[in-house]
């Protein structure tokens, strides 16, 4: 092989090798999917068998099959609730991103703003959401907006603190370089601080995605049956009162599934954004 020629000509990708590499990548990814799926299937089987062999009543512990049947039978109402909860979650996450990133940018522009406001962001974070949710629900007339505020409070902080950290962790020499070339504040932000903050922001986003869902569900619980908007938590409360335990499990399943999906989507986004350059996303070859 003439390595020198390749080096001079720049990156050369041979088609046959590319195909082989793709096959290798799939072969690598397959066990990573198959292993957890196998564990899941085995657990469900054991669960199903135990329920039948022990003769456990469905109102104590329903079998997976029964839960699945209930889910399908009640899909109409559950689907509406799922949609409501997901809407609250997504909106809360979007507002958290917009406000969190804006505030973080403001923080890096002025030390005084950061010093004055950061403690309150911390207070917002450390106060348990269950404790303030009733207040918010009383204060805000529209329950949907009250739920949104609760979910937002929980989702907001990781984005704010991570993005602030990221904006401040731009390489010192690069900051000097920008200064040397007379970069304006905006250019410094646009071309240096924001890209440098990206991995931190995305890390915060992944945490906040799950937290937004938790915040939404907790707020729904607190709002209880009083809320005319009926999210998944409301379905769980309702099934509890009516002792429809399989339906409770079905709603619970939907919540967990949503959480996992949110995590997967955000992980994918993070990977796509960082895959070309950040250590966390690149596949090491040595």
């Amino acid at each position: 092989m003439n390595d020198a020629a390749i080096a001079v000509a720049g990156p050369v990708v041979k088609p046959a090798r590319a195909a082989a590499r793709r096959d290798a990548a799939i072969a690598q990814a397959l066990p990573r999917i198959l292993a957890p799926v196998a564990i899941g299937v085995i657990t469900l089987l054991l669960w199903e068998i135990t329920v039948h062999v022990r003769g456990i009543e469905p109102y104590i512990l329903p079998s997976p099959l029964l839960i699945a049947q209930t889910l399908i039978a009640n899909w109409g109402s559950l689907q509406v609730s799922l949609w409501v909860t997901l809407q609250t979650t997504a909106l809360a996450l979007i507002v958290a991103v917009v406000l969190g990133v804006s505030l973080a940018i403001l923080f890096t522009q002025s030390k005084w703003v950061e010093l004055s406001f950061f403690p309150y962001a911390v207070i917002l974070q450390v106060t348990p959401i269950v404790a303030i949710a009733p207040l918010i629900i009383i204060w805000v007339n529209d329950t949907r907006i009250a739920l949104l505020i609760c979910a937002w409070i929980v989702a907001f902080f990781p984005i704010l603190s991570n993005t602030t950290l990221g904006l401040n962790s731009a390489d010192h020499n690069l900051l000097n370089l920008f200064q040397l070339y007379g970069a304006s504040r905006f250019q410094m932000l646009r071309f240096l601080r924001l890209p440098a903050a990206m991995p931190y922001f995305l890390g915060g986003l992944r945490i906040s995605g799950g937290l937004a869902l938790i915040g939404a569900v907790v707020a729904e619980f607190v709002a209880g049956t009083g809320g005319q908007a009926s999210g998944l938590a409301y379905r769980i409360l309702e099934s509890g009162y009516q002792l429809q335990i399989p339906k409770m499990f079905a709603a619970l399943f939907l919540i967990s599934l949503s959480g996992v999906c949110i995590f997967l989507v955000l992980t994918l986004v993070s990977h796509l954004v960082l895959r070309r350059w950040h250590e966390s996303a690149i596949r090491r070859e040595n």
Partner: protein
Amino acid sequence: MIGLAAPMPAADSGAPPLPTATKGRPIVTLRGVEKQFSNGTLAVEDFNAVVGAHEFVSLLGPSGCGKSTVLRMIAGLGAPTSGEIDWPSADHDVAGEPRRDLSFVFQEPTLMPWATAIRNVMLPLRLARTARSEMQDRAAEALALVGLGGFENAYPRELSGGMKMRVSIARAIVTRPRILLMDEPFAALDEITRFKLNNDLLELWGAQSWTVIFVTHSVFESVYLSQRIVVMAARPGRVISEIAITAPYPRDESFRTSPIYNDHCRAVSAELHRAMAA
């Protein structure tokens, strides 16, 4: 080896190859420059030097003697605590700051990891709001100049240490600066790559009308490259002596093995030892 005999008489005959600081138009003057950091460290004391246009000057000294500090002050990164740095031939902006028109090559490549090689090189032009097409052309040209044509779209992590350094140099020269400040740019590289980049740098310097201030702690490198070497001593950082290297350019591999090169190295080495003992 036979070829070696040729440059020697030329050097000895005393024909000045290029103007030196004292003869050339001064481009930057440091007078009584002192730098004390807030923690009390006196990094530089009573530093005096003149650098002329188109000169190649090296700052040589032991680790921690304040070379980087001086270079950064010249670049305007951190003002001296006393003394002054003058730019006699530069325009001044409304705030009275000189338009230094310089580029800085840091000890580390200092590339943006999220940007491709060409986007890294385009950065200074982008900050100066150059038109996109011109930016592309000039960046590609600068990359080709440092021998990295074909690697425009490679990310820094896909490049070797020497290649990253060359991207960093391309970024420094893309603005066609009057002055190039280099802080031990090749210190982390292997010898072969370093020699190659030394030659490339000299070639570029010969072709463009640059002034280069080059920081190094290698006697051999400073003698090979420069017209004049400013030897510094530590604690506090100060100038011990200035040595002119009269050997003519172009200098190439044969110069590295010539007796005159050896003589210069020995003389500079002695100065450096004196500096370290001082």
